[in-house]
């Protein structure tokens, strides 16, 4: 395992210590494995919490910050946080106006966040849930509720975060989060795996000249595996699948994210972006605030995800509203 770490079992806790030490003005760790805004919950504001496994920075923890999230519960690498940690995150996010749970559609996370929600109900903290399920490769459209949440969650964090920062109530913040989640479609492809520190071995095996289309961010099997194709062919196929699932028409506006899973450098993302832009413009749609970089990763995995987020005036305004965290500022 070629990673820079100490004891694999300390990976997450040391990472969180370092994160808070490097950015004390942004992040605080009020209890183990719970990261909240350094300033504490804003009174009267709806709190937004997320959570999930580690190994996806900036997702999940990184997006805690003004105009974004209020707290995150952090599990081991690729493992769900505990119910206790989720409940803790919710308590620290609560500013008296309730809490939105906004996270990816993974069985364990759903189970635990639901249970945490029930616990918080007993403490009279009102909460709602919006699940991110943007990965079109993970289930067909008629089973869209089974889809996994991937990089599209960043758009939901951003728009819901902006709405909450504008002091909207829980129902409104929840509506915006759901609307953004519904407007997002993602697809990924991977070239090489990553290694979960505690496991010590790669998450999957793949040939030296192979790629897998549709692979998930933990190495979940995709749609096909074949010889590595040229960047333009990869971009075309990914855009085809996204636009089949959510067509864009003349006059539509959309943001697009070309996201590295970790090891793929920005140089390659920009090569992809040229072609992605062409596909969107060919559909007659206009690109708003494209995001090219590392927004949702799988540590050192090589690969790319593309996310489309269809915008109306409301979402566009929220997407462009100021926000900041250690990994991203708008």
């Amino acid at each position, binding site marked *: 395992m070629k990673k820079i770490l100490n004891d694999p079992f300390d990976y997450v806790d040391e990472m969180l210590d370092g994160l808070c030490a490097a950015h004390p003005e942004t992040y605080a760790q009020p209890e183990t494995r719970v990261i909240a805004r350094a300033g504490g919950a804003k009174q009267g504001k709806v709190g937004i919490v997320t959570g999930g496994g580690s190994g996806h920075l900036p997702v999940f923890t990184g997006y805690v910050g003004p105009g974004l999230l209020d707290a995150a519960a952090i599990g081991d690498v690729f*493992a769900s946080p505990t*119910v*206790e940690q989720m409940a803790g995150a919710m308590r620290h996010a609560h500013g008296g106006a309730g809490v939105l749970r906004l996270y990816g559609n993974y*069985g364990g996370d759903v189970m635990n966040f639901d*249970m945490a929600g029930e616990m918080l109900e007993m403490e009279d903290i009102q909460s709602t849930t919006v699940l991110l399920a943007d990965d079109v490769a993970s289930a067909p459209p008629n089973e869209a509720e089974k889809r996994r949440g991937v990089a599209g969650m960043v758009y939901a964090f951003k728009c819901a975060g902006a709405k909450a920062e504008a002091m909207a109530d829980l129902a409104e913040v929840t509506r915006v989060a759901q609307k953004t989640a519904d407007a997002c479609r993602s697809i990924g492809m991977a070239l090489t795996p990553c290694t979960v520190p505690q496991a010590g071995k790669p998450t999957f095996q793949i040939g030296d000249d192979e790629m897998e289309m549709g692979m998930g961010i933990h190495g979940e099997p995709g749609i096909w595996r074949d010889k590595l194709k040229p960047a333009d062919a990869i971009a075309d196929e990914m855009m085809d699948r996204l636009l089949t699932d959510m067509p864009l028409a003349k006059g539509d506006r959309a943001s697009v994210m070309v996201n590295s899973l970790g090891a793929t450098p920005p140089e390659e993302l920009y090569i992809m972006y040229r072609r992605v832009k062409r596909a969107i413009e060919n559909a007659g749609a206009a690109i708003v605030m494209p995001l090219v970089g590392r927004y949702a990763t799988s540590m050192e995995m090589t690969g790319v995800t593309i996310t489309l987020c269809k915008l109306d005036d409301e979402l566009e305004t929220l997407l462009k509203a100021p926000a900041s965290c250690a990994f991203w500022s708008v």
Partner: protein
Amino acid sequence: MGGLTSESLCRGLPRICAALEACADELNTADGALGDGDLGVTMQRGARGVQGMLDSLPADVGMALLACAQAFVKISGSTYGTLLATGLMSAAKTCKGRGVVPWAEMSSLVGGAVTAMQHRGKGALGDKTVLDALDAVRAATAGLEASEKILTAATTAVDQVMDDFRGKPSRQGRARMFGDKSIGLDDPGMLALKRMLYALKED
């Protein structure tokens, strides 16, 4: 006759905990073949949590079961821990305020747990999970009143259900991703339940 009391829990739980310590590697391996390989760790950590609160186990059977449930959600976010806690909490609610719960109620407690766990995990019977094993236990123990008979019926039922499902594919949790590759393998969650039940049975 007798029934489930804080004392009987204090006798039975250490045996379950010891069994979970002993079979941790086995469960990790089974889960490793179909998932992330952490089931043994989850159960071992949960068992240690339970062990740590045996001294202060409440006399109220409901509260005692609640304490067990909490031990499991504290230590891990893995599915099985949360589902087990969900089942225990369901039983805890039914038993709350009682010092003794007749053995005859076991089948219905298990049935209540299965329902709560189905709701929590959005899993269905037939998916080849611990739910199928628990439901078989519920069915096999219905109408029984003696703890020995209940245990014998339960262990027989679990063995039977594992035989029945071995040749089927997993349809839930991480194992689902393995599709037909899961055929021929035991569900790790059923195996964990089997180890716990046998721990109570053996003398």
